[in-house]
């Protein structure tokens, strides 16, 4: 295990992984929702809200899109999530390296300039986030650091997979289990819940 990781680092890296993946998956779901709203059901966004667990206070689909994607005052908005990923990356910059960090910063800048009436403009955000994942694999020297971020990623995949019934959830579960055994994190099988895994990365982790 990397001998220079603190509890704060661990927590930040784990949540970095979660927030980045949250943006990627919700971005996919938003594109699907938008598509459905176009010619089938203009109120399809309400299903999205229900699944993600937010109260529908929106006037209509367009209002939902603009608020959900770009309203920085809403803690669950896409821009808030990517901003949270950015904040976690910012405090981990000495670990992440500037090259990896740049892709995340770019995703944030692109999203800020995004035109929600032209949903395809979100694709560039996703491109930058995928580039971010790739850069981690390419440039990170510490396998431990990479694995902790990935654990956050897979936990998020499972969480949102359950909400949206996504098929890739089972593969993520298998990967997460493998990683936990790799890190010798010993939880009894029945204790492995999302809440249980999150609690591993709060600041009490490793307290003896």
């Amino acid at each position, binding site marked *: *295990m990397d*001998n*220079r*990781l*603190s*509890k*704060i*680092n*661990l927590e930040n890296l784990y949540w970095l992984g979660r927030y980045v993946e949250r943006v990627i998956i919700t971005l996919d779901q938003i594109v699907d929702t938008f598509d459905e709203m176009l010619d089938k059901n203009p109120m399809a966004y309400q299903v999205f809200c229900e699944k993600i667990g937010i109260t529908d206070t929106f006037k209509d689909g367009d209002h939902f899109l603009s608020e959900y994607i770009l309203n920085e005052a809403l803690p669950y908005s896409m821009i808030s999530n990517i901003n949270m990923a950015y*904040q976690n990356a*910012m*405090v981990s*910059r*000495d670990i992440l*390296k*500037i090259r990896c*960090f*740049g892709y995340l*910063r*770019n995703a944030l*800048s692109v999203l800020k300039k995004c035109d929600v009436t032209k949903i395809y403009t979100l694709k560039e955000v996703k491109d930058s986030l995928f580039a971010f994942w790739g850069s981690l694999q390419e440039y990170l020297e510490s396998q431990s650091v990479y694995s902790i971020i990935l654990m956050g990623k897979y936990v998020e995949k499972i969480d949102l997979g359950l909400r949206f019934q996504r098929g890739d959830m089972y593969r993520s579960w298998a990967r997460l289990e493998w990683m936990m055994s790799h890190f010798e994190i010993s939880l009894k099988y029945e204790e492995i819940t999302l809440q249980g895994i999150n609690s591993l990365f709060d600041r009490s*982790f*490793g*307290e*003896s």
Partner: protein
Amino acid sequence: MHREINGKNHEIIKTYLDRYGVKFGIYKDNTFDERIFPFDMIPRVIEEEEYKILEKGLIQRVKALNAFLNDIYSTQQIVKDGIIPEEFITSSSGYFPQLCGVKPVKGIYAHISGIDLVQGKDSKWYVLEDNIRVPSGASYSVVARNITRMAAPEIFKDIPIRENRHYPQMLKEMMDSVNTGGINVILTPGRSNAAFFEHAFLAEKSGAKLVFPSELEVDGEGVYFRHFSGEKIRVGAIYRRISDEFLDPLAFNPHSLLGVPNLMSAYHKGEVAIVNAVGNGVADDKGIYYFVPKMVEYYLGEEPILENAPTYLPYFEKDMQYTLENIDKLVIKDVAEAGGYGVLFGRDLSLEKREALIESIKKEPRRFISQEIIDFKELEIISDTKTSRKADFRAYVVMGAEEIHVWPSGLTRYTTRTDTFIVNSSQGGGFKDTWIIDSQK
């Protein structure tokens, strides 16, 4: 200037600066905001020949300041010999009498010095300030150079510009030279610090571990980094980016949440090197600045190579009289302030404010210095029309246990407004890279 320095490349560079998060924080109306540090692609150019003189002068100045700190925290011979009045030492907010007799590792106080200079219209350089507490800013030029090389590579093929991207390596070597056995760390007060970008950048590039105060602890005599597993890893050198007053709540400000309890105890025992040393504030006090040329003569027995801007101390009767008689053509500085605050130009003050300032100077002469206004050189900046702005130059001197080096570059800060001489980033200033060029090559 080279054809590649143009608006188009300038835009590319700005995009990259944003991408790399090259920012500084600013507090305004009690809120923290993070801004891109405005960068201008046209560099300050210093010819190698001129740089060599500056280099000698800077090394001389920092050696004298380091000798002064060694003296002030031991026998205070310079006071006994009547070179500096005792009051200037004891009344300095950066002086900590409790540190007398405490020797930093290998006698190095001024590990990293940021010396602020300006170049007059007659091309003569003047030192405006010595920053030897926690001088910031070097990383901005390193990042800017990296990006400029990508955006405008032809320039670097054509012009022999001295490399500046090894600053983090200089930092590492200096820290290694004073390390007492353990890892090097950069101690940041946190994400909301104005210079957090720099803390993280220097940690990444120098290989030091970026740490927050709660990640360090003093156990027994040593300082340790807390690994998440509970293991403690010994720390040998701390490049702290936290002011003295907040470093250790048991030694200084008891309300500090940024400090590491008992850190000073480990420091006293020589168990850890703190970069820069604690107590340096006495040497970069604006009042003490007046005496630096005298320190050069006193400690090194040499003629000072670099000159101060003509400065007066109202503490001395003659200087008080001169200051009061000429206040309209002087700049008055409050020695307790920094970051461009507390700088008043007599000519800009209303009658009422002028009178109030005069009263303050008479009441607390030690609190102020007055200086002749140097009409310093303007540098061209990229704009729709040909424009230039006032600019200063911060040179960095890195002093390790065996070697002392001037970084062959620096941070050139310029005013973004035409109506001010204040270049500080906290006051809206921008920055330029500084190129040392050997045209003979």
